[in-house]
């Protein structure tokens, strides 16, 4: 019975989400709080609300993706948006069209939001600068994947209540991982202590500038960790240059039950997927009681609904 004024938040100004650095702690928490509401929507008998009826979402994926694209598609549909998917293999870029021309063509269809995944780092930024619609980066090369970091933060928060002070170990191919980059930035802002572990050949030169503590063995990162995030070894990007063999990698950096025992007893295990079972993570751990990998997938839809909702309603004034 309090007056409505009390329930108004400051205006949401952000129109595009390219990097975790577009968010500060307040706006990141607002996305996560909003996602709690949408999490509940996804568990109702009718998993759809009319909130963004009549708005159009374009999913433009120049790189293969199943879970991220499906997640954005479901998020848009559960908000009653019209969702159109375009994948790289069927798009005109294979016929020689430039990225800019493709985007200009799509823009002429009057979308409200464009979700883009592209193999080139900076592609989403490039598009956002030249496009009237709001742009959401769903992975650009080895740069960033901010909604993945948000859904990881959401999953962690649901299990650990608060991120402040948590030790988060991110292990594997940090060099090629946009997930690691976005997570280090976002989780750092939310007060977590991020540790990177991986072979030196797969560690970016300035990893510490992302605010992470860097280890070249996995054990010190795991010790006392509250959260363990394993990254996929991207076979297609490695081919013997960065690693002698996958078996050696698995022996020295793979997460098995024995290694996981170094972390806190109630530590949770995350993986952005898709997993290479038996390479970076053993099946016992992946399917074990500490694994929250499927929770991440469920969280992904809720977090993306929150991002779509906030970006699509964006610069409008608050109601009196």
């Amino acid at each position, binding site marked *: *019975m309090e007056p409505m004024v009390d329930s108004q938040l400051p205006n949401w100004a952000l129109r595009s989400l390219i990097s975790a650095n577009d968010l500060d702690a307040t706006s990141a928490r607002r996305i996560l709080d909003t996602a709690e509401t949408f999490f509940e929507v996804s568990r109702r*008998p*009718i998993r759809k*609300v009319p*909130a963004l009826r009549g*708005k159009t979402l374009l999913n433009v994926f120049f790189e293969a993706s199943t879970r991220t694209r499906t997640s954005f598609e479901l998020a848009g549909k559960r908000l009653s948006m019209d969702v159109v998917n375009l994948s790289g293999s069927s798009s005109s870029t294979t016929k020689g069209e430039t990225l800019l021309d493709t985007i200009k063509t799509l823009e002429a269809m009057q979308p409200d939001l464009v979700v883009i995944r592209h193999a080139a780092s900076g592609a989403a930024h490039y598009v956002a600068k030249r496009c009237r619609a709001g742009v959401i980066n769903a992975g650009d090369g080895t740069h960033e994947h901010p909604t993945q970091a948000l859904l990881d933060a959401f999953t962690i928060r649901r299990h650990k209540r608060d991120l402040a002070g948590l030790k988060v170990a991110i292990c594997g191919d940090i060099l090629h991982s946009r997930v690691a980059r976005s997570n280090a930035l976002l989780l750092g802002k939310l007060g977590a202590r991020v540790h990177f572990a991986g072979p030196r050949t797969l560690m970016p030169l300035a990893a510490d500038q992302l605010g992470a503590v860097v280890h070249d063995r996995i054990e010190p990162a795991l010790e006392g960790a509250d959260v363990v995030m394993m990254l996929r070894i991207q076979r297609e990007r490695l081919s013997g240059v960065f690693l002698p063999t996958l078996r050696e990698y698995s022996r020295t950096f793979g997460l098995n039950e024995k290694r996981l025992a170094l972390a806190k007893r109630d530590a949770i295990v995350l993986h952005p997927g898709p997993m290479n079972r038996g390479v970076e993570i053993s099946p016992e751990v992946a399917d074990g009681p500490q694994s929250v990998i499927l929770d991440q997938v469920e969280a992904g839809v809720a977090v993306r609904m929150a991002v779509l909702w906030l970006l699509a309603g964006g610069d409008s004034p608050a109601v009196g």
Partner: protein
Amino acid sequence: MSDVLLDPPAIALCLRRIATEIIERGNVRALVDGTARQPPILVAVRRGGEALAKRIGALAVEAGSPALPFGVVDITLYRDDAATALANARIGPSHIPISVDGRRVVLVDDVLHTGRTIRAAVDAVLDYGRPSVIELAVLVDRGGRELPIQADYVGRTVDVPRGSRVEVMVKRTGPRQEDEEPWALIIPPAGEPNREAAPPAEEPR
């Protein structure tokens, strides 16, 4: 600047009457339809209806009813101006503890005005299932409808000119939940639209 429409004792009387009417109508329904008596699900419209619905639930139990399941819906996502105007509203979680299929649902809100909020709340409830009937209880019906919607249970009907606001506010008189006193106020357009227009400090009138 604000006028008192209902003071705490008057609100208590209104809610007691509404609770009794809700039970009675349930009894009549059970008799007419020959169905088993089952308490209705009280669903509050966030946030104005929450405290009122809890009071109504408690009063119904005092009057001899079995406990009423209590839910709450946030209508932000169902508003007809949702996409253009409401990204800055704090969306609270909705929650209905049991299935509404085949059940009687009583929506509870503080003030009935244009009817748009209730239209949205009905849509929200229907996303949880198919109730046998949805009824509406409000503390104040101030007129000014823009949709064909009416309340089944009304505390007080009053014609308030457009531009004036009717607000139900809680004044805390002590640390406990029971120390909250609800006041219904009419705030004229000239009045500052902020919480300074709070319940009067001394005894009214």
